């Protein structure tokens, strides 16, 4: 076996050295009945690289690859071009095959990169501090709600109807067990978000109000009035950003008064990957730092006074505080955070701005083109790189029919909100710098055919 360095002669010699006559001697503690003598059923013996590669390539070929067709899916996962150097760098063995930086003297590479990551995230979100990553946007969102409960000692969270339905589901799952009360609703296929509803719902029991920005339909709302109302009532504003590229074009939630900003970082540096691994971003105001979940990297000095970095404030964490920890998270999304940071370093202010401008401009062009297709109506007044179309038919079968023609035309609201009748004709369309003019024309033609 190519991955196992011990030779049989090594094994014999080592068994002798430990005083065992056979390997079974080392498994004495396993009750006889539980010792497996047969091989795992149906599993072949070890296989060559060539054979494994063939088997798995055959599976990979059964999927329609986003980059090979006109592609318009978003709804929390976006297809952006990732510079080749990002993957090159995150594949360096010293990053790829290291552990959480428990021994900081020989983990300064990871630690400094995390410190830079935290700073990038905090600045992007307009917050004071950020952590070293969460699993993804949806779990980060739930952790934010939990954190708001800890801070406010209140149990009611008001969720905007524009929050990604998976994020809502995750919160609902957890709330079932924690007893949090979630005040939620479905989005409406209209240009207006549910700001008024949110403002009305925030009261003295509210721990937080959770608003996605831009929201699941792509709409952009000013968060300032929500922040003001929340603060007035002693609640926190949690903003959720599923498309970080948007923040190259629009104001950051922090600027508008959000207390905690969380989101999905996948757009920057991390590919689609069929939904994971992604990287949850988590930032907040400085005063809440000791209530944050997850790892934090901080600056310090070494024995010679040189600057260095360490994991810090670990008294919040499970390995020190156990049942009193702010979260149970341990392994986070380190390498994706690194990828995010490398890509963001390549972009810089200038690149992020340009990327956002290009996304927005292409999306505006596409929205105008698609709105001209008979049977298609543009729902949004505002959007960044993603907007919602209202079709003259149920969207889900249209999406499937377009897929049969080799066009991945968007995410139907029927997929996201099964059973919500008012939403079934909605189609969420994302347009990025990777979308070409021809792609848009192909989608327009396909829609026209399917809706005729």
């Amino acid at each position: 076996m190519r991955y196992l360095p011990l030779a049989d002669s090594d094994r014999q010699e080592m068994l002798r050295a430990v005083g065992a006559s056979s390997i079974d001697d080392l498994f004495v503690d396993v009750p006889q009945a539980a010792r497996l003598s047969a091989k795992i059923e149906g599993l072949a013996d070890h296989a060559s690289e060539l054979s494994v590669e063939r088997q798995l390539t055959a599976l990979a070929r059964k999927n329609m690859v986003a980059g090979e067709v006109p592609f318009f899916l978003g709804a929390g996962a976006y297809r952006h071009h990732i510079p080749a150097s990002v993957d090159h760098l995150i594949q360096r063995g010293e990053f790829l095959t290291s552990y959480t930086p428990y021994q900081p003297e020989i983990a300064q590479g990871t630690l400094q990169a995390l410190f830079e990551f935290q700073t990038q995230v905090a600045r992007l979100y307009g917050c004071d501090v950020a952590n070293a990553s969460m699993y993804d946007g949806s779990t980060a969102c739930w952790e934010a709600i939990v954190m708001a409960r800890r801070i406010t000692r209140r149990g009611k969270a008001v969720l905007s109807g524009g929050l990604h339905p998976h994020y809502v589901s995750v919160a609902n799952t957890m709330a079932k067990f924690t007893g949090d009360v979630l005040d939620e609703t479905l989005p409406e296929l209209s240009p207006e978000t549910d700001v008024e509803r949110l403002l009305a719902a925030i009261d003295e029991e509210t721990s937080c109000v959770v608003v996605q920005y831009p929201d699941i339909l792509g709409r952009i709302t000013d968060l300032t009035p929500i922040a003001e109302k929340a603060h007035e009532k002693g609640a926190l504003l949690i903003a959720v950003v599923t498309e970080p590229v948007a923040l190259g074009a629009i104001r950051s939630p922090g600027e508008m008064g959000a207390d905690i900003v969380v989101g999905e970082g996948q757009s920057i540096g991390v590919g689609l990957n069929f939904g994971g691994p992604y990287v949850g971003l988590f930032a907040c105001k400085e005063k809440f730092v000791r209530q944050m979940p997850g790892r934090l990297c901080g600056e310090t000095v070494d024995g010679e006074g040189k600057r260095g970095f360490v994991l810090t404030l670990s008294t919040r964490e499970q390995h020190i505080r156990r049942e009193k920890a702010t979260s149970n998270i341990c392994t986070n999304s380190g390498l994706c955070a690194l990828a995010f940071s490398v890509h963001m370093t390549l972009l810089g202010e200038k690149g992020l701005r340009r990327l956002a401008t290009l996304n927005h401009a292409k999306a505006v062009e596409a929205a105008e083109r698609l709105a001209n297709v008979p049977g298609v109506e543009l729902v949004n007044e505002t959007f960044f790189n993603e907007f919602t179309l209202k079709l003259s038919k149920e969207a889900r079968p249209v999406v499937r029919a377009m897929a049969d023609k080799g066009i991945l035309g968007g995410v139907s609201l029927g997929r996201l909100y099964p059973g919500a009748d008012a939403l079934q004709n909605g189609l969420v369309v994302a347009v990025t710098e990777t979308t070409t003019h021809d792609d848009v024309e192909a989608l327009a033609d396909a829609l026209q055919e399917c809706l005729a």
Partner: protein
Amino acid sequence: MSMNREGRATRPESAEASVDTWTGNRALMLEEPLIFEMDARGGTGVDFAGAPKVKSRLGGLERRRDVGLPGLSEPQTVRHYTRLSRQNYAIDLGLFPLGSCTMKHNPRLNERIARLPGFADIHPLQPADTVQGAYRLIHDLGEWLIKLTGMHSVAMSPKAGAHGELCGLLAIRSALEARGGKREVVLVPESAHGTNPATAAFAGYRVENIPATERGRVDLAALKARLGPDVAAVMITNPNTCGLFEPDMTEISRAVHDSGALVYCDGANFNAIVGRVRPGDLGIDAMHINLHKTFSTPHGGGGPGSGPVVFSEALTPFAPLPFVEKQNDHYALIEEETAEDHHARSFGRMTAFHGQMGMFTRALSYILSHGADGLRQVAEDAVLNANYMLRQLEDVLDAPYGKSGPCMHEALFSDKGFEGGLSTLDLAKGLIDEGFHPMTMYFPLVVHGAMLVEPTETESKAALDQFIGAMRSVAERAKAGDPSLKAAPVHAPRRRLDETLAARKPVLVYKEPEQAQAAE
């Protein structure tokens, strides 16, 4: 400090004390500033086609302030991160015996597989017909995990071990609630990993400890005594965090079940028994598997991981959504909409989308590569390597459970007998100078100054022998109270770092010098 013409420091001020070069570099060990300290405003490493002119649809919320992001050209970026990477230790450099972490070699084939566009460049919400290969991969991997553990079903979506623990406990809680009655306590051994009690608390339980025997196992009698109508579940790690198999596991399961509670098994240490023992045969109800441990997906300096959970038949109806189901020749993703008929009692969704696909591809590649014979050999070699460590070191280091028989995949030592105020930490730092990553320190909590050494099966005998030699050498120094050990490491990119300072005055983001001053 020397200034260049703009008055910006070109040489790190603090470097002067210890090194004799103008730059502060030491040949191939290069000092690297933060990206924020580089003169990188206005720079970028990405080019874009020009954007068409359009009427903005941003609703008047155009960004007004700069984000404050430095941008580096590609050459600068590659250099920055390459230099940083060189300040890290990694499996690719040497033995990384972090107990409980299973730092085994990460096969490069798996990296190639994970990057196939057919896996890496597909969107989680594509119509089912366009991602049959992906569904099938998730399904197949799940099937192997079920077979390897001897369990009944699997939930693939948990994002890491701790998330898997939560998944397991939520299923347990749902099952218990479905039965009716309120159970509020989860029992956890003192030696358990911190995520166990943290998860139990997160799931709304009160945590109580179970004591350990002198042989480092769960105290069966004490456990039985504590079981009762208020106990919802017991969380057992097996092999446990002392690196020992729980020989009473079957009886524990029986007792727990008899009391109406359920058994959660922390499967972080599955590597010791994969292919040789199926946890399902020991009567457990749920167990997470860290694909980033046993199944070799890279740790990446902290993640991502993946923590699928296998369930007994009793818990299967409560497993989370979504999941992949095979329907004749077709694979379907059972999400909220279709769950009604299939899976009405699911406790719900744990994450957006369907789990860590990028880890699944790697794990399946790992399983197919090793096959039935190879996986069994993995466990055997992991255990053999650990026992070899134990026996080659127990004469110089106290091995609290060394007398009680063989260990599994980890060898546990303590710092008993160190002199001159030296402790586990000092030995660890001494190992750094020797070119090794230290073992896990001060965990499990049940052993004073614990040192948990997990070599894994991907180490050669020569590597073990070199580690043993180094460990013996440093242990002798610790036992002799060699004060120079307090200064270790001396050869690493940094001397010991002041963690107290870091926590007392947290600096978690870079502030421009003006900003930083203003903040004082």
